[in-house]
């Protein structure tokens, strides 16, 4: 365990302490204690920057289950450091914000901070481990923590709905991902990402390449809310706003992005990887931005906008994966896409974080997030309005904010895709920049709409539930202000991050592209001259403003008035159908009839046995070494069969009992013939007692009715029972002949040889029972005594006043 391991585990340890702090130090808001941890971790991770920016990596090994290839190896390179800084940095700001957002009198702070810390630790685990199984474990913990946080106000029905939805969708993806990881293990024999990347050629050549890729991508797409799995994210907005800002825009939803970026080294270069990710990203981008326009809830707009921005980053990673096809890092053609992805990842965390916090402030102060009720808040909440303006301008892609820079890079990346000249891009590649353009127009549109509807227009207090609206307390404003300042700072001086954070992350996404000692060229500028990107940005602004001016015209169309996502219907119907279907299945299957259960069980056993025999060409009845049949045994067996076969035809109680008794005594006789004297003795004894017991009990039972079974049922019963008997006969013969063929030495040799010497007994069976396997016999006695106790209590015991059942 190194310090780095403890850093990953520290949030979990802190989570254990939270309930105590909450209980015994009630006067201080629990958030203040929590705040220390992410801040300390953030500073700790900052100290790794010199290491990663010089192209080095940190790797600390810790064996967990080495025999299965599962090791808790903590690995820091540019990409994981970027994420670790995001998690702890945004985490610090969110905790600070939550101290003012959640009241210490009214809320269950202990639950909130335990879940939040659990998430933080798990997320650090995902981005810092090198082992796929460890990543999977932490990955699922983030899903659980996310669901718990969404359902934080668990008395609200919508919270529970959202929590369940996110749980089903992300855990479904997580399990697929586990299957994908297992396939990768089958191919390459390792769970270590570094070793997988080293064996990328082997994986690429395998026939399991495509299934493994699709399964892993299912995990990444569900987590990162990619189309059509994006539907859980808008419903996750039921969580307290600090959670939405943290998990559902800045960190957790980027876990899928992280995974795709991390595994680009394994899968990158394959046309399938390129197409699936680029297309999924672009569809998500356009679907998210169009849906965001339709939303009336501030957080709903932000949720769909997050979906669309995640799609943007995803499509960039898809486009950038082509670098592996060329194995050439010098060309800026495709490295622009990866640069844009990394840069936009950082920018999105800053502007979206500040926007969520601003939305939370508005909700907190006015009591609503509905843009139809809000308006004119500019003069009342000037600071919040400024923060929102900066965030929205950046998201819309306006200069001089950081969003402008990454949007330009995004457009460059998408335009250059058409120049790759691979994967049939020349034929349909032109669609890619067009989709990017249209999606950007809608992004611009919802940014204006959101600002206009909230801060401009007329302020109408009568639509709000609160009496007075005023600016938020300063504590709540600190975090969004810091983020807004970063938005401006990164916008004005983009190269602050260029070689410290962005370049190492790019090198980590595209390992092996550069030879050691080389660096990617990262130089982000505002002015590229009169390029296609510039005209596209101008076009976006013009079209966006046009759509906004004509807003009145399409305000009342069905498109704008509905806000439900089409895929929600699919989810809801699917969910209902699943429950109804399983109820229907249970009703059919669980009839409460013993007969039906026997039919199921016997049919299933027959099918399994039949298939096994067919599969292994059984039964092998030829060459059986059978023992001779003495004449007198024929008599015993004939009488035995006669008594057995009459039982089903009898309708008299006493006759059935006596016939059963006869067959039991004949079994004892058969044991004598088979030279098993002990068995014969026991059987005799037991059979006598059984018959007496039967007599006693059936003295109390009613006479047998003559039962009329419908002929159809009778046929089914006959087929099942005869088929089952036949299967047993065949099975018994196959087992016997296989035993003879294999000719193993019997394990009872040991008992035969040692029973006299070691146990001092001549009767081997007895010695086995009371000496060699004495403990088993003792437990058998226990079983019998339990049965006796039950019998006695069933007959004798009556509780006073209790119900006699």
């Amino acid at each position, binding site marked *: 365990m190194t310090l780095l391991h403890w850093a990953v585990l520290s949030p979990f340890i802190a989570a254990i302490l939270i309930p105590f702090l909450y209980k015994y130090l009630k006067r201080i808001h629990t958030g203040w204690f929590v705040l220390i941890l992410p801040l300390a971790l953030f500073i700790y991770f900052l100290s790794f920057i010199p290491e990663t920016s010089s192209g080095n990596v940190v790797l600390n090994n810790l064996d967990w289950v080495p025999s299965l290839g599962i090791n808790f190896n903590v690995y820091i390179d540019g990409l994981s450091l970027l994420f670790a800084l995001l998690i702890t940095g945004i985490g610090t700001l969110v905790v600070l914000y939550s101290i003012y957002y959640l009241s210490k009198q009214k809320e269950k702070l202990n639950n909130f901070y335990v879940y939040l810390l659990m998430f933080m630790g798990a997320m650090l685990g995902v981005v810092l481990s090198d082992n796929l199984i460890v990543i999977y474990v932490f990955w699922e913990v983030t899903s659980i923590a996310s669901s718990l946080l969404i359902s934080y106000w668990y008395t609200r029905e919508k919270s529970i709905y959202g929590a369940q939805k996110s749980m089903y969708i992300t855990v479904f993806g997580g399990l697929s991902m586990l299957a994908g990881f297992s396939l990768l293990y089958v191919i390459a024999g390792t769970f270590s990402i570094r070793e997988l990347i080293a064996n990328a050629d082997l994986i690429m050549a395998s026939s399991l390449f495509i299934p493994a890729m699709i399964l892993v991508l299912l995990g990444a797409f569900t987590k990162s809310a990619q189309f059509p799995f994006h539907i859980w994210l808008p419903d996750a907005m039921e969580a307290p706003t600090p959670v939405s800002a943290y998990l559902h825009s800045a960190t957790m939803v980027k876990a899928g992005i992280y995974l795709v970026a991390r595994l680009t080294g394994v899968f990158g270069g394959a046309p399938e990887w390129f197409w699936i990710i680029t297309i999924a990203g672009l569809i998500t981008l356009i679907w998210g931005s169009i849906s965001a326009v339709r939303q009336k809830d501030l957080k709903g707009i932000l949720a769909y906008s997050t979906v669309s921005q995640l799609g943007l980053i995803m499509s960039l990673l898809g486009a950038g994966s082509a670098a592996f096809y060329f194995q050439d890092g010098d060309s800026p053609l495709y490295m622009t896409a990866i640069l844009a992805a990394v840069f936009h990842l950082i920018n999105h965390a800053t502007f979206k974080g500040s926007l969520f916090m601003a939305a939370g402030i508005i909700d907190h102060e006015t009591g609503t997030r509905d843009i139809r009720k809000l308006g004119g808040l500019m003069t009342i909440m000037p600071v919040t309005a400024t923060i929102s303006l900066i965030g929205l301008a950046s998201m819309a892609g306006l200069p001089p904010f950081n969003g402008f820079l990454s949007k330009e890079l995004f457009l460059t990346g998408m335009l250059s895709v058409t120049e790759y000249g691979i994967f049939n891009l020349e034929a349909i590649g032109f669609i890619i920049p067009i989709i990017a353009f249209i999606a950007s127009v809608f992004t611009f549109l919802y940014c204006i709409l959101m600002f206009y509807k909230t801060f401009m227009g007329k302020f109408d207090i009568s639509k709000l539930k609160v009496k007075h609206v005023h600016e938020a307390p300063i504590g709540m404003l600190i975090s969004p202000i810091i983020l807004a300042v970063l938005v401006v700072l990164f916008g004005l001086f983009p190269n602050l991050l260029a070689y410290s954070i962005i370049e190492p992350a790019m090198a980590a996404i595209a390992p092996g592209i550069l030879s050691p000692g080389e660096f990617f060229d990262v130089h982000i500028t505002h002015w590229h001259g009169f390029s296609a990107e510039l005209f596209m940005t101008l076009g976006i602004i013009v079209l966006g403003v046009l759509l906004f001016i004509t807003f009145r015209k399409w305000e009342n169309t069905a498109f704008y008035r509905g806000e439900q996502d089409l895929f929600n219907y699919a989810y809801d119907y699917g969910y209902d159908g699943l429950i109804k279907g399983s109820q229907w299945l249970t009703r059919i299957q669980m009839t409460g009839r013993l007969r039906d259960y026997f039919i199921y069980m016997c049919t299933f056993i027959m099918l399994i046995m039949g298939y096994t025999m067919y599969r292994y060409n059984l039964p092998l009845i030829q060459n059986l070494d059978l023992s001779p049949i003495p004449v007198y045994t024929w008599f015993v067996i004939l009488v035995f069969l006669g008594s057995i076969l009459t039982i089903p035809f009898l309708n008299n109680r006493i006759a059935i009992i006596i016939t059963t008794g006869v067959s039991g005594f004949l079994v004892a006789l058969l044991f004598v013939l088979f030279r098993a004297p002990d068995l014969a003795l026991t059987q005799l004894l037991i059979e006598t007692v059984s018959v007496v017991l039967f007599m006693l009990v059936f003295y109390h039972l009613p006479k047998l009715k003559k039962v009329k079974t419908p002929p159809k049922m009778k046929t089914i019963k006959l087929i099942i029972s005869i088929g089952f008997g036949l299967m047993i006969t065949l099975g018994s013969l196959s087992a016997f002949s296989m035993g003879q063929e294999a000719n193993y030495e019997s394990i009872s040799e040991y008992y035969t040889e040692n029973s006299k010497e070691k146990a001092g007994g001549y009767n081997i069976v007895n010695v086995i029972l009371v000496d060699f396997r004495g403990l088993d*016999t003792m437990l058998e006695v226990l079983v019998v005594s339990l049965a006796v106790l039950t019998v006695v209590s069933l007959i004798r015991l009556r509780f006073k006043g209790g119900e006699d059942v």
Partner: protein
Amino acid sequence: MELLMSIVIGIIFSVSIYLFMSKNLLRVAVATLLLSHGVHLLLVTMSGLQRGASPILSFDAEAYTDPLPHALVLTAIVISFAVTALLLVMSYRTYKVHKTDDLEDLRGSADE
């Protein structure tokens, strides 16, 4: 002998399964008893029949029948007796309480 016994065991199983599917508690109790007979004979048959003397060392034979299945079956006989006894008493109590021995009438209500 083993072939013959396999067929006999198959018939025991058939009859027992047939009885299990009847509606009457008494027949079900008999069916469990028959099923255990079938299983015991199956275990003994598997190890080969009538090969060598009874597994008692004082007989001083060259070969003994396999004692291990015997030990297993001996245990099984006792346990199956316990099971049968329990089943019998339970059907007795069921009849006392519900006044019927028809499994069809003893089903739980459909709208559970």
